């Protein structure tokens, strides 16, 4: 490891395989975050106290939260910057396109999902900004947890208020469909990008990507609708 100099890290970052590798690693990190986030969301199906107890517990971790937040921002930025750069490179590499471009069929993984990564990605990036602004930096209401001594932030109310508006419900549900598309290609592609793929694994992982994409997107998709309907 001592042989890895600064110039080598830079060389890796600039090389085509290095760029994919970093996009893949950050993608896997973000997928891990989605799983944790979705698990946290399950509290909304239990009730307000469960949600507020969970967010209060998270915030009691103090500086650790800040470190994770900064880490997540860095991961999102690297993933987005490299993804946009890869999409731009594509135009440079083929200045004149084809009159016709038709897939050669299986085993090709080209799909509407794979071809729209840049667009679903850009929408997701803008969505993350909106989402953090709406909730993390949203209004602050105090509430008391059962048996609590100090008031905690009523995160449940913040979320319920937003999803009282059917427009927000529709926007969130629409973006979650795009998330599903992004994951359909992204899950499999991330492992291919870091070299964790072989001929034997490929079909299984591609099928797993579909399952992962549907489960994650559906999990986030139903919550706004559920909260809108029960309130």
């Amino acid at each position, binding site marked *: *490891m001592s*042989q*890895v100099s600064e110039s*080598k890290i830079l*060389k*890796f970052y600039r*090389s*085509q*395989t*290095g*760029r*994919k*590798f970093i996009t893949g690693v950050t993608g896997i990190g973000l997928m891990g975050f989605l799983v944790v986030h979705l698990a946290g969301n399950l509290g909304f199906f239990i009730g307000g106290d469960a949600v507020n107890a969970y967010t209060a517990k998270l915030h009691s971790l103090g500086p650790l939260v800040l470190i994770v937040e900064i880490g997540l921002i860095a991961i999102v930025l690297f993933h987005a910057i490299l993804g946009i*750069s*890869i999409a731009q*490179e*594509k135009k*440079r*590499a*083929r*200045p*004149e*396109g*084809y*009159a*016709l*471009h*038709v*897939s*050669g*069929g*299986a*085993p*090709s*993984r*080209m799909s509407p999902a*794979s*071809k729209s*990564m840049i667009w679903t990605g850009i929408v997701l990036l803008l969505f993350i900004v909106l989402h953090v602004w709406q909730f993390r930096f949203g209004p602050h209401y105090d509430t008391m947890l059962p048996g609590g001594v100090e008031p905690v932030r009523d995160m449940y109310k913040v979320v319920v208020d937003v999803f009282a508006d059917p427009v927000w419900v529709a926007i969130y549900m629409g973006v979650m469909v795009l998330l599903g598309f992004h994951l359909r*290609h992204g899950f*499999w*592609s991330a492992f*291919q*990008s*870091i*070299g*964790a*793929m*072989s*001929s034997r694994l*490929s079909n299984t992982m591609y099928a797993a990507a579909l399952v992962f994409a549907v489960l994650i997107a559906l999990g986030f998709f139903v919550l706004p609708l559920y909260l809108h309907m029960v309130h």
Partner: protein
Amino acid sequence: MSHDNMTIHLRVWRQSGPNAKGNFEQYTLDTVNPHMSFLEMLDVLNERLTKEGQVPVEFDHDCREGICGSCGVVINGTAHGPQQRTASCQLHMRHYKDGDAITIEPWRAKAFPIVRDLVVDRTAFDRIQEAGGYVSVKTGSAPDAHAVPIGKEVADEAFDYAACIGCGACVAACPNASASLFTAAKISQLALLPQGQPERKRRVVAMVDQMKVEGFGDCSNHGECEAVCPKGISIAGIAKMRREYFKAILTGK
């Protein structure tokens, strides 16, 4: 199967030189035999054009047996046409019906500039190969075949990668015009074999860097390359190339 001659409507990319503006020209052939290969069909067109005093359509070809990698055109939007694991020369007109329209375009990539009509300059591949796709060995009389034992599974896998004929269909079909499958095939073949070990790390770094220098795009894992590859080379090779690159950077080349 019909043995009757067919009428085929062609739309062919014509471009008189590297910097000339190209355009599609329409030709109708009414004596296309189903047994003809795709290139023989183009021969028929060129004979007619020559007789009429027109400039024939330039296209690359050599062995016409699917093993040299010279030929290759985009046929109705797919590199090497509709039949998988088949180079353009081995595609036969029996796959088409009387009255079909066929659009023929050259490989399109910045790194593969058009020389004329359907001929592109693929020396970018040669330069990637020269960057590290070789083994340095003392030449002399051939060693005994069993002097370096190689397991059957390893030999088979290396051979699958060695089957690459460098035709460039992977680049042509890639939405990003990436040369990853070609480069990965060369790297993987040599990384698997004992003869390729001395230069293993230096090779992967040099060849990957050369792809970028030549102006090929980044890979987005669409896998379209594997679908059009006349040798069916797996994108598992691209995953292997990335592992090799990561290891080379980590452990020093």
